[in-house]
């Protein structure tokens, strides 16, 4: 599949900060770069390549036109993607970065679909084994009866005073 460069127009950075730019001190931490595509023909974006210059985290939002009738909406493709593991170090500060489409989370399936629970399919039973559902039914009833009798015990004592069936006075226990 051949890849085609899409002509785009990168606008100047705009600092996001609260308050007046001129009067407040300090430099803002978030900058926004707008990228527009002058060509009208629809395309599927596969890859974005750029060279980093001391940006630690990157978020990409795309204005998505699903069709001609529905209004366009903004979709976050990438959120806080880490370009520099340690913002105070040099690592990743001036790297070339390629971002691919599959990295965008909006393109992936919902989590529960992408990780189906591995269920052990019972292998084909050997010939001659009894029907498990009927066996299970009987065993469950037996278990229930045992549980019932375990639960229903009387605390009444019969008042025995002998030890091992013997009434020898010297061996009387006080149970």
């Amino acid at each position, binding site marked *: 599949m051949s890849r085609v460069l899409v002509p785009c127009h990168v606008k100047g950075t705009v600092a996001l900060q609260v308050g007046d730019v001129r009067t407040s001190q300090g430099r803002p931490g978030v900058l926004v770069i707008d990228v527009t595509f002058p060509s009208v023909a629809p395309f599927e974006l596969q890859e974005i390549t750029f060279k980093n210059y001391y940006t630690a985290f990157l978020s990409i939002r795309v204005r998505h036109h699903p069709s001609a009738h529905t209004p366009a909406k903004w979709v976050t493709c990438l959120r806080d993607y880490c370009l520099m593991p340690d913002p105070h170090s040099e690592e990743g500060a001036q790297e070339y970065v390629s971002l691919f489409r599959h990295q965008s989370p909006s393109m992936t399936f919902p989590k529960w679909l992408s990780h189906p629970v591995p269920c052990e399919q019972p292998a084909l039973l050997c010939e001659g084994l009894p029907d498990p559902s*009927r*066996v299970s039914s009987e065993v469950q009833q037996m278990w229930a*009866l*045992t*549980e019932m*009798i375990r639960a229903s015990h009387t605390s009444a004592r019969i008042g025995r005073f002998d030890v091992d069936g013997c009434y020898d006075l010297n061996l009387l226990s006080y149970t």
Partner: protein
Amino acid sequence: MAVLPVPLPSAKMATVEKRRPTVIPPTGFTDSGRPSVSQAAGATESEEDFLRQVGVTEMLRAALLKVLEARPEEPIAFLAHYFENMGLRSPVNGGAGEPPGQLLLQQQRLGRALWHLRLAHHSQRAAFNNNVTVAYECLSAGGRRKRPGLDGRTYSELLRRICRDGRAPDEVVAPLLRKVQCRDHEAVPLSVFRAGTLTCFVLLEFVARAAALFRLLQEPAAAVADRRVGQAVLDTLEGALRASDAAAPARFLEAGSRLGPDSLALALDRAVGGRRPGAPMTRAEFLERAAALFIAKVKPVG
């Protein structure tokens, strides 16, 4: 001067008429609307009065109540047995002649108590408890040569009879009886009596289920089962019972999941697939070992 209202003479006479006792006041029949007040005492006896006098009304009422409580599958046969047992209540020769011996009386009492205990299935707990109380009173009633109360010997005899009549093999129930029987001389209170009889009936049902289970496991041609299969099933049940030893409520979920068809199928598959078949397991052995799992959970009398 105010005068107190005097009750109408006719109403007063009516109450007096009603109170004249020719028969015991009816308990089941509502005939307050009937003009019985016009009858003079002892004159014409209606059929109703006759039935009431000989006690048939009360007897039939009690019989119908028993049927409603027990809900038997064959009500006619049930009623037949009921009336047959009624005859045991009063001495055959109405008091004249030699009264039946002590041994015969004891057997009669046992028979009657057994009959009461079998009226309702143990799962119909309210009816079963009622019957237990009646049976206990029947056995504890004092007689000419018998002191009131239930002694251990009669109680143990009753338990043996329950198990024997339930067609459970002796070697299967013997360990249970050893646990719940009482010494001959001991006085058995009602709570112990109830617990013991309930345990016996539940064991009988357990053994019946185990027998049905064995029929599922046994080879088509022979009356024995593959030892690996039988052992796997018993081990699964034992494991589930052990899982429910812990106190947390989640134990039931765990035990239940072990006994589900999928997990049982896996256990059976695993048991058969690796080992050579050993000596086959007989029905008697299977029942005995299954019952042992049940009896292990029974609290002994003490």
